[in-house]
């Protein structure tokens, strides 16, 4: 174990700004990439879903 206490852990031997600045930004960007990607996926499937339902309705009306 490297750390005597929680505050010692967060202080990172005086390198707190640099270590947490690196890990924090990396975590933030990786999470943001996933969030944006999920949003993109949802937008596309919703748009395509609407278009497919519309096509089915048009086909049904043409048959009656």
């Amino acid at each position, binding site marked *: *174990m*490297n*750390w005597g206490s929680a505050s010692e*852990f967060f202080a*990172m*031997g*005086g*390198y707190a700004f*640099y*270590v947490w*600045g*690196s*890990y924090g*930004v*990396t975590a933030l*960007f*990786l999470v943001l*990439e*996933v969030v944006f*990607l*999920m949003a*993109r*996926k949802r937008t*596309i*499937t919703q748009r*395509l*879903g609407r*278009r*497919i339902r519309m*096509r089915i309705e048009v086909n049904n009306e043409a048959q009656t």
Partner: protein
Amino acid sequence: MAINWFKYSSPASFYPLAGKLIPYFAVLAAVLTVIGLYLGFFVAPTDYKQGEGYRIMFIHVPAAWMSMFIYLVMAVYAGLGLVFNTRLSSLMASALAPTGALFTFLALWTGSMWGKPMWGTWWVWDARLTSELILLFLYIGFMSLKAAIDDPRRAARASGLLAIIGAINVPIIYKSVEWWNTLHQGASISITSGTSMEATMLTTLLVMSFAFWMYAIAVALVRVRCEILEAEGDTEWVAAELSSRR
């Protein structure tokens, strides 16, 4: 067991396969990240020269490796797309580019955060840093070129050519610390001479690299499914695929 690989070069059969694979890579990425962070902060000892500041290495080096590796994979897909004219290849190249650019940015960012306390500067225009910055511009150029051309076939061909030509930059980045005088330290791990690192530090580095690798695969597979849907939105199989899930 014979697998017909060409079967999976068709978007219609790759889409459901990718969907099945994503959860495995996502779980692997999450588990490896937890293990890697635990090793990196609680098991790996304090560095005798750099104190606790060296722990930035555990994300800086994997991010830098992934930035180069993803570029090469992207260039290979672009090349396959040019040679075999398979639609999926150029979609895979597009799916990899944003994640590669992200890792390049993170390599530069964490490098800067590491350089300031250890070298006394955020940035120097030396070979390693400059060639990594060029890599970021290559990713951005690839994505912008592809987005700028309306016809998807021509867009794939032009951006594919850019990706392949740009691949020359990757060995330059890798060898830059040997070819030029630089502030950046030499490779800590080498195929020919082994490693100059303490064992737990090396293990942590490898675990974090695999975590980033699995993350990149999971994200690229989600993105290639988006690309496939956008390219093939009006086909019958997409209609069947999307309505079967309801």
